[in-house]
């Protein structure tokens, strides 16, 4: 072997627009920024569609046509699907064409790319089943493999997911959980009977996703033949090469002029030069390769940052306070009977909101400002909490009315 398993995350949040105390009680269009700012969801979606989704999907379609052995897996979040429908329906069309080849698999996830697995198992289950139903309606498929938001995973989550009937789950092949073990095998989550665990080969995945255009990297430039040789090297040492990454690698994180599209176009043929190599979707990987051992992950991991844990979303009081305020509203939002409020609340569960509040690398003139559409993590927090205040008022009024 080995079998190369490509998995791509496709996600966009609904970013909260600039929202002050004067909007509270007056404005419920939380996500409708229309300015030049990077909070304008329509603008961002158009940009990413043009730079990434449309060109990369075109390359993928061509690859599927040229190589019958080629396989791809995607997880497309519900918030991304919403924005495709609203802003760039042609992107949805191109994903439909991909799925229509029969060699492109869709995974299940939480509809709103949320942290519900950590905070509310009930909401987690609802978001997952809503999303599965939607994928059925839009693509005519029924996912059997699951991936949680930003590959957030631990033994407990594996249990939640197995109980929902999924046959597989993805996670980060982090050193601190693998130890001497290799991500080139399937594993069984500790204490589970049926579900299989596929782990990201972070070295090879990040070579493409992060290091590809870095001229200071010893392996720059990364060519398709070179990468093909690295994949070959797994031969005899494992079954799987799990290349998991954000789809925005292609055209957004790695711009076109880095040569990333050429690389992608030539990669399958280089990998297929060795007759023992092939491609698998996630469920093919699970069917073909039995778990070789149990893997214990008591502490929650993710694919985020160096720490590969929850700290990107939960490492400071701003994040803790806003997460607490959000989930404190869950019961009242659901019993208010206000569907619009519930949908708005769900959009506020998306993990990105809390990512924007992260202060781990924040300092004057810091380079990570690139990833934050707000002026600062504090600005992100204040904006988010103002919206929470408005949502709280909406439910209060509704509840009062109902009881009157």
């Amino acid at each position: 072997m080995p079998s190369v398993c490509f998995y791509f995350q496709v996600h966009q949040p609904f970013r909260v627009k600039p929202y002050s105390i004067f909007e509270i009680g007056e404005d419920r269009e939380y996500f409708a920024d229309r300015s030049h700012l990077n909070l304008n969801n329509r603008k961002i979606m158009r940009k990413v569609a043009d730079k990434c989704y449309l060109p990369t999907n075109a390359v993928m379609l061509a690859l599927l046509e040229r190589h019958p052995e080629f396989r791809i897996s995607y997880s497309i979040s519900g918030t991304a699907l919403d924005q495709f429908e609203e802003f760039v329906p042609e992107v949805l069309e191109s994903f439909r064409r991909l799925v229509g080849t029969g060699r492109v698999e869709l995974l299940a996830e939480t509809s709103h790319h949320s942290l519900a697995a950590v905070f509310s198992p009930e909401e987690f289950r609802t978001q997952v089943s809503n999303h599965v139903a939607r994928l059925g309606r839009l693509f005519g498929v029924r996912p059997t493999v699951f991936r949680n938001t930003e590959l957030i995973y631990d033994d407990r989550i594996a249990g939640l997911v197995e109980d929902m009937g999924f046959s597989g789950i993805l996670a980060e092949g982090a050193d601190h959980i693998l130890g001497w073990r290799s991500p080139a095998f399937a594993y069984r989550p500790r204490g589970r009977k049926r579900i299989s665990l596929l782990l990201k080969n972070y070295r090879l995945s990040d070579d493409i996703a992060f290091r590809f255009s870095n001229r200071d990297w010893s392996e720059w430039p990364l060519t398709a033949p070179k990468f093909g040789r690295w994949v070959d090297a797994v031969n005899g040492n494992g079954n799987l090469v799990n290349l998991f990454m954000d789809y925005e690698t292609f055209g957004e994180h790695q711009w076109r002029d880095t040569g990333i599209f050429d690389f992608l176009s030539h990669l399958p043929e280089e990998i297929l030069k060795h007759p023992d190599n092939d491609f698998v979707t996630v469920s093919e990987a699970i069917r073909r390769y039995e778990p070789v051992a149990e893997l214990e992950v008591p502490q929650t991991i993710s694919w985020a940052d160096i720490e590969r844990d929850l700290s990107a979303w939960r490492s400071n009081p701003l994040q803790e306070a806003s997460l607490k305020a959000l989930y404190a509203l869950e019961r009242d939002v659901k019993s208010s009977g206000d569907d619009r409020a519930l949908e708005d609340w769900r959009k506020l569960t998306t993990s990105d909101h809390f990512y924007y509040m992260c202060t781990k690398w924040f300092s004057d003139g810091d380079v990570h400002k690139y990833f934050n559409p707000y002026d600062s993590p504090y600005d992100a927090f204040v904006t988010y909490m103002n919206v929470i205040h408005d949502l709280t008022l909406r439910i209060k009024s509704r509840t009062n009315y109902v009881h009157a």
Partner: protein
Amino acid sequence: MRVLMFGWEFPPFNSGGLGTACLGLTKALSRSGHDIVFVLPKQLDLKVDYMDLLFADVPRLRVKAVNSPLAGYLTDHRYRVLMGALPPELARLYGRDLYEETQRYAEKASAIASTVEHDVIHAHDWLSFPAGMAAKAASGKPLVAHVHATEFDRTADGGVNQLVYECERAGMHAADAVVAVSNYTKERVARHYEVAPEKIHVVHNGVDPREVRKLGASKLNDHYKIVLFLGRITVQKGPDWFLKAARLVLERDKDVLFVVAGAGDMERQVILDAADSGIADRVVFTGFRRGDDIDRLYQMADLYVMPSVSEPFGITALEAVQNGTPVIVSKQSGVREVLPEAVQVDFWDTRRMADEMLRLLSHREEAKRLGQLQRAALPGITWDAAALKLASLYKNVLPVRA
């Protein structure tokens, strides 16, 4: 009288009370027939030394900007950060640090003294004192050093910057008269700067009487009682004491919302503090606001609280009262001298602060009555009254001293 004034900020380019006070005073002086040339520093993105600024609202006022990055409430650290952000060809125009720039500004500003006819020089706070002193040396006219705040107030008695202290002291001693915005400030000036009390004249700040526009309530008022903090978010203003009292209030009444309006060097710390202490869902931060937004905030509030650690005057308390909102002020403030009807609490007495808040929030009639009482005191606390005292000072005190 022709007055040559040196200030460091003027609306709309202001970030605090100093600019408001300068505008109030110049308008009132102009109304009583005085001519004013107001000189301030402004960072001009050009290689010029001076620029005339248009200020059409006030007759008999000319505003001259001297090209300088000096600005309100600047510290040495902030100055360096500012300079670091400028392109090199602009940065070269200015001093390398705050001290150098203050001297350079003084030279440029005082050069105006020889081009402008004036009877008296009036300098506002430490940044302007060297300029005032240099102007006096150039023209021989008498100098008034107007103290709106001292370094001790700004640092909440937490360790003064020696450069600033020496500017203040030199200005006060070189001046022919010192004006303090309250007896509280006069006492501190006499004590910390060894200025003879007879030389210090108290001229309280004020507000211009105006018809405040009713700007409509917020839906937040339907569900919460609202307590407002409005001012620079810095140690002097006691925003941390505000939060401490807020926590005590929320222990007894969950239906209160605390609004923190303003910006400043403690802003992030205060946001973190609110989040960390579990009251983030009862605190709203508004950032820096101007104009109608400020009135809207005062009107939205059921109570305005000014918990300053050291407040030479506290114009915001008067603005709140103008908008019909009763105020609780720190005993360590100047405004209470002219507003005895304000509820007064030691800034550190958070338990009492919380008690007073709760009392007024739950006894609406009492709060309303208090607001009316406070409102009734306003007609005596105007910029016109202040201008009258200044004019009298210019006329009577200065010739004798000079």
